[in-house]
């Protein structure tokens, strides 16, 4: 690791190398800030790297995160210190002094080649391998661990010098000592995550005693190809594939017993569904999967659809109850689960081969001590307390928090908070050197012009993904026969650090001047492999990727020889193409660093402020006449803060801010350009005068609409209102409300239905908020809440418990038998069926509160999507670039989305997104120059017949006839579509990277064996 002492001004300390910590570090390094990333484990990656598949994409996403990890190690601005903990912190925001203690690794990182010899011979003295295999001595957390080295638990090692000799690279350092270092940093981000609850203490479930009772993570490891069973789903007791698997939700959560915690961990429902789906999809679809649950909490974006698909498409059985106990059967191989459901009061038992306990998050003992060291307050559940409106801000200035340690959340929300924390932490640091210096870090580019092609072919097996669907070795051998191929090899996980290093080594050794990678889609990994070529001194365009995974292995899994034959053909095409490819130079353009924010609600204002405070000039465009958006009419939040006052001061701050220009009554009419050089036209004010804004990045914060469906007499009876109306009434006429005797609320009104399939996430919390305020006013008021699933996720579960304690009556209703309302003078009568009593009920209520949730502002998003070419989801929200790892970026470069325009979310979560988007934008605009890449059209002046076809065909009017009488195309303006090249009658135009020669060579490669 390059060890350069950082002065306080430029370094941010990130504690915890999980996915949140890495994302924060990456964002900071992109924004040209130095980062000191510290993790107590031997390799960064944290919890996510052990997950086999993750929801909602059901991809392992390891390869989408591994580029982050390996990139993390490579970024010049990131200084990685594994096996290290923070032991002391002094100073204040802008200038902290931290003491770091590193435990010995007993392996010299520079020498270790991760060959695994020591691991084979001495499995016993390794740190604990989370999962079932408790013995391996040298622990490599996962195939693509970063740093790429093992670590030894010397205490557990019996034959030390035997271990030393076995290492071919004699990298083992017996007398490795604990090191202590002090560093001065400007701000700190706490991203240590949390542990998963160890259910051994729940004796009624028998985890730890019965081998076939496993935790969610352990089940994950069993399914994972890099897990102890190498991806075979088998019962731990006898290694036999299970026929019936059950999941028990809220193991240790939402409970009042000794070992339970009261809060909900927000993610267990989704990961249980995912594990059930993957069990059926990847192993055998005849495995019976059952989930025992109280409320199915799938409240994230499009998660409800995932839940319905689990039930309808995959046949996952859902049983609503809280199982009493697990008892093994006589043979000890199977387990009885005893449970009682509302419908039949008696106890029933069922036999299962495996039971998975969905355990939630618990702050580890480390974090409580670390919090004391950092001097940050914890909340009642020992998680770090974030601000009510600014979740990433802790009680101590200059110290920020993100991820699960701030509260249980899924990976997309963690990524949002990581970007937000990076943005806030960056305030305290100066600028740490621009990209130009980085460029020089690469070795000089070798000139290959004139050399006969020497092609290296690297074929990934990508674990099961490719290896499982075809005979990779046959493909590799076949590749050796192709023209100009001088080196072939099977690259395993090609995108992993190890394979990348090996590829660079082969390029040097075999003097390769072209590389073909048989791997996944160039859309996601082209940049990674191009970068690798660049680091090996090769021009990065001397590369061709054959998509043998997404467009072959994954779609012809069933026919092994067909997939193998096709892989050979795809690689033959790539070899043909790359032989014709030539080195290309990239074009650079100065960046316009202003930012355009569309939408003046809380999200828009928060991102404008976050950027403004960092010195960026922001234009905030609002369609209506005033700022504030939907939040402006909300009175209180669940925590009881005065929302209206908060929004008012936000508006004031924005209007007073000298870096932010607000334009109201502004409607977008046109848009053009590319990141760093956008032009967007507005018609402003009643006279609709036209004004064009020049900017480098764009934030879509257009919010969503409060849903008011014509149901339950809403709008037709005085006593029927939405939670929003009630929230306002509680504030304006408390006396009138206090003398209500009875109040009924109905959940999921107009949400989770056919025409609005998604859950609006916030309605359960707003119902509980209002219920608590009602019972504050009049403790004797009888409050009924009719619900389908109570989704008070995270710490809001405490409010749900408090509501029940105060006697609020919660009654579940089936989606297909909703409650009915009839007018009853000034009051209304609500008819519903109570599943516990098994009887139909009638309640006459002074007020009926409907939880109606949010709807996408379809009309606005449709117009904006057309103008900006943005993608949207089916229900009209803006679509992010990657649902899991890039929730804030949009697929069109330079565009970001924040707030309810992305999906329904609370104000607090919207602000996190807004600040996260500000963080992402600082990464984009930190560069002084934008790299336009090399895909531009070039005109051969000798062939051009000056026929004007290209001038007329170009959708962006770029080509023009210059004074030397031939067509000229400005590389800075060319968008690289290639339309002119295909129209040119004189074949004078070639689009670099997609010239005719490589395309023809690919066709010849594909079709040559026809004769």
């Amino acid at each position, binding site marked *: 690791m390059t060890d350069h002492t950082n002065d306080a001004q430029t370094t941010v300390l990130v504690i915890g190398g999980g996915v949140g910590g890495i994302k924060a570090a990456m964002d900071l390094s992109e924004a040209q800030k130095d980062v000191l990333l510290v993790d107590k484990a031997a390799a960064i990656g944290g919890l996510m790297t052990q997950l086999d598949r993750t929801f909602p994409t059901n991809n392992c996403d390891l390869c989408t995160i591994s580029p982050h990890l390996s990139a993390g190690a490579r970024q010049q601005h990131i200084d990685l210190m594994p096996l290290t903990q923070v032991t002391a912190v002094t100073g204040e925001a802008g200038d902290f002094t931290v003491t770091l203690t590193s435990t010995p690794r007993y392996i010299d990182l520079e020498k270790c080649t991760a060959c695994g010899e020591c691991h084979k011979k001495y499995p016993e003295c390794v740190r604990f391998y989370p999962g079932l295999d408790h013995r391996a001595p040298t622990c490599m957390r996962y195939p693509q661990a970063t740093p790429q080295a093992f670590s030894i638990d010397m205490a557990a090692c019996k034959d030390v010098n035997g271990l030393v000799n076995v290492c071919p690279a004699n990298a083992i350092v017996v007398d490795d000592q604990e090191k202590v270092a002090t560093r001065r940093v400007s701000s700190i981000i706490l991203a240590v995550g949390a542990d998963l609850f160890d259910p051994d203490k729940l004796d009624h479930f028998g985890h730890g005693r019965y081998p076939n009772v496993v935790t969610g993570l352990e089940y994950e490891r069993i399914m994972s190809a890099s897990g102890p069973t190498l991806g075979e789903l088998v019962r731990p007791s006898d290694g036999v594939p299970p026929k019936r698997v059950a999941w028990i939700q809220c193991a240790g959560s939402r409970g009042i017993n000794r070992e339970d915690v009261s809060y909900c961990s927000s993610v267990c429902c989704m990961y249980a569904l995912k594990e059930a789906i993957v069990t059926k999809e990847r192993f055998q679809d005849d495995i019976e999967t059952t989930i025992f649950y109280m409320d199915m909490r799938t409240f994230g974006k499009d998660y409800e659809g995932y839940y319905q698909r689990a039930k309808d498409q995959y046949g996952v059985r859902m049983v609503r109850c809280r199982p009493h106990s697990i008892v093994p059967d006589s043979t000890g191989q199977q387990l009885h689960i005893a449970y009682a459901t509302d419908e039949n009061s008696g106890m029933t038992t069922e036999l299962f081969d495996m039971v998975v306990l969905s355990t939630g998050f618990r702050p580890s003992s480390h974090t409580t001590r670390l919090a004391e060291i950092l001097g940050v307050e914890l909340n009642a559940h020992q998680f770090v307390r974030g601000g009510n409106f600014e979740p990433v801000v802790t009680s101590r200035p200059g110290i920020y928090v993100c991820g699960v340690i701030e509260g249980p959340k899924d990976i997309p929300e963690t990524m949002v908070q990581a970007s937000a924390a990076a943005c806030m932490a960056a305030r305290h640091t100066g600028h740490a050197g621009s990209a130009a210096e980085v460029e020089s870090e690469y070795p000089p580019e070798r000139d290959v012009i004139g050399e006969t092609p020497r092609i290296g072919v690297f074929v990934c097996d990508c674990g099961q993904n490719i290896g499982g669907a075809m005979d990779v070795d046959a493909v590799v051998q076949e590749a050796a026969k192709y023209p100009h191929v001088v080196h072939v090899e099977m690259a395993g996980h090609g995108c992993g650090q190890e394979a990348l290093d090996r590829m660079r080594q082969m390029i040097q050794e075999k003097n390769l001047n072209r590389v073909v990678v048989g791997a996944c889609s160039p859309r996601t990994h082209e940049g990674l492999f191009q970068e690798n070529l660049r680091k090996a001194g090769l021009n990065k365009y001397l590369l061709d990727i054959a998509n043998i995974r997404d467009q072959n292995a994954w779609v012809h899994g069933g026919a092994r020889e067909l997939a193998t034959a096709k892989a050979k053909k795809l690689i033959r095409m790539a070899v043909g193409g790359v032989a014709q490819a030539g080195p290309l130079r990239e074009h650079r353009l100065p960046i316009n660093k202003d930012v355009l924010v569309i939408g003046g609600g809380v999200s828009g204002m928060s991102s404008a402020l976050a950027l403004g405070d960092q010195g960026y000039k922001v234009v905030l465009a609002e369609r209506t006449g005033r700022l504030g958006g939907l939040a402006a009419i909300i009175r209180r939040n669940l925590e009881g803060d005065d929302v209206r006052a908060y929004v008012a001061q936000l508006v004031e701050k924005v209007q007073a801010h000298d870096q932010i220009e607000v334009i109201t009554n502004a409607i977008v009419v046109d848009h053009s350009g590319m990141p760093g050089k956008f032009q967007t036209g507005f018609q402003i004010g009643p006279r609709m005068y036209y004004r064009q804004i020049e900017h480098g990045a764009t934030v879509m914060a257009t919010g969503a609409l409060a849903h008011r469906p014509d149901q339950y007499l809403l709008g037709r009876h005085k006593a029927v209102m939405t939670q929003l109306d009630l929230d306002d009434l509680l504030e304006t006429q408390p006396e009138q409300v206090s003398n209500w005797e009875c109040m009924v609320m109905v959940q999921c009104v107009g949400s989770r239905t056919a025409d609005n399939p998604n859950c609006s996430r916030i309605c359960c919390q707003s119902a509980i908020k209002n219920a608590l305020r009602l019972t504050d006013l009049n403790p004797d008021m009888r409050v009924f809440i009719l619900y389908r699933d109570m989704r008070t996720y995270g710490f809001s579960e405490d409010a749900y418990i408090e509501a029940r304690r105060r006697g609020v009556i919660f009654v579940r209703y089936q989606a297909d038998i909703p409650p009915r309302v009839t007018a009853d003078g000034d009051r209304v009568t609500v008819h519903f069926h109570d599943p516990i009593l098994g009887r139909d009920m009638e309640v006459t209520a002074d007020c009926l509160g409907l939880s109606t949730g949010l709807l996408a502002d379809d009309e606005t998003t449709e117009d904006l999507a057309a103008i900006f070419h943005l993608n949207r989801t089916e229900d009209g929200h803006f679509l992010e670039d990657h649902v899991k790892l890039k929730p804030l970026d949009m697929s069109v470069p330079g565009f970001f989305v924040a707030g309810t325009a992305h999906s329904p979310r609370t104000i607090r979560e919207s602000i996190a997104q807004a600040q996260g988007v500000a963080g992402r934008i600082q990464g984009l605009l930190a560069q002084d120059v934008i790299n336009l890449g090399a895909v531009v059209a070039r005109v051969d002046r000798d*062939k051009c*017949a000056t*026929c*004007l*076809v290209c001038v*007329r*065909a170009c959708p962006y009017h770029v080509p023009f006839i210059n004074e030397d009488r031939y067509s000229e195309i400005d590389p800075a303006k060319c968008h690289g579509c290639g339309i002119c090249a295909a129209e*040119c*009658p*004189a*074949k*004078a135009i070639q689009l670099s990277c997609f010239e005719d020669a490589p395309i023809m060579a690919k066709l010849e490669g594909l079709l040559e064996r026809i004769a």
Partner: protein
Amino acid sequence: MITAERKPLAEIIDYIDNCRRILLVGCNECVTVCAAGGRKEVAMLASAMQMDFMKRGKTVDIREMTLERQCEPEYVEELAPFIDQADAVVSMACGCGVQEVVRRFRGKRVYPAVNTSFMGAAERPGVWAERCHGCGNCLLGLTGGICPIARCSKRLMNGPCGGSSKGKCEVSTEIDCVWQLIWDRLKELGIEDRYEEIILAKDWRTERGGGPRKIVREDLAQ
């Protein structure tokens, strides 16, 4: 510019059906601009010919070349090294190009691949319309700059005829009645009375009437 349109494939194939080696030559001037005989069209025709032969079980070896301008001896000379290995030349140039190759390479079978049509202008991308007949004695000065010889179906110099209706020629509504255009133009210029001056009978010798023509610049002629 000179415009042309590719001949039907069947006709071209008829010319060269008994050949095994073809030299297919495009031209980078007018026929490129009107997308009839440029480098791209050469490749398209080559591919089409190749497929046609192969479909009938015959082989053909096609060399594709595109000269800068096929009506210039020096450019045509570039074919010399390849002419002997070809049983026939198929030229995608306008009539001038085809005949220039014939003039240079005696005894070599040379066939046209395009129908040279007219001197015209690009009405809009991909559409060319006749504008000049090459009559050798331009009367645009008399008709407000719009030519009745090239653009009237009956070459009337004192039109319009009785068949002009709604500005269109009696022959087809696709064709503008040029005399309507001329009349509108004269009105624009405010010289309507110029219309009544009779344009006298034309001396067609400067057109084709006088036989194939030559232009000689004594100062340049070697």
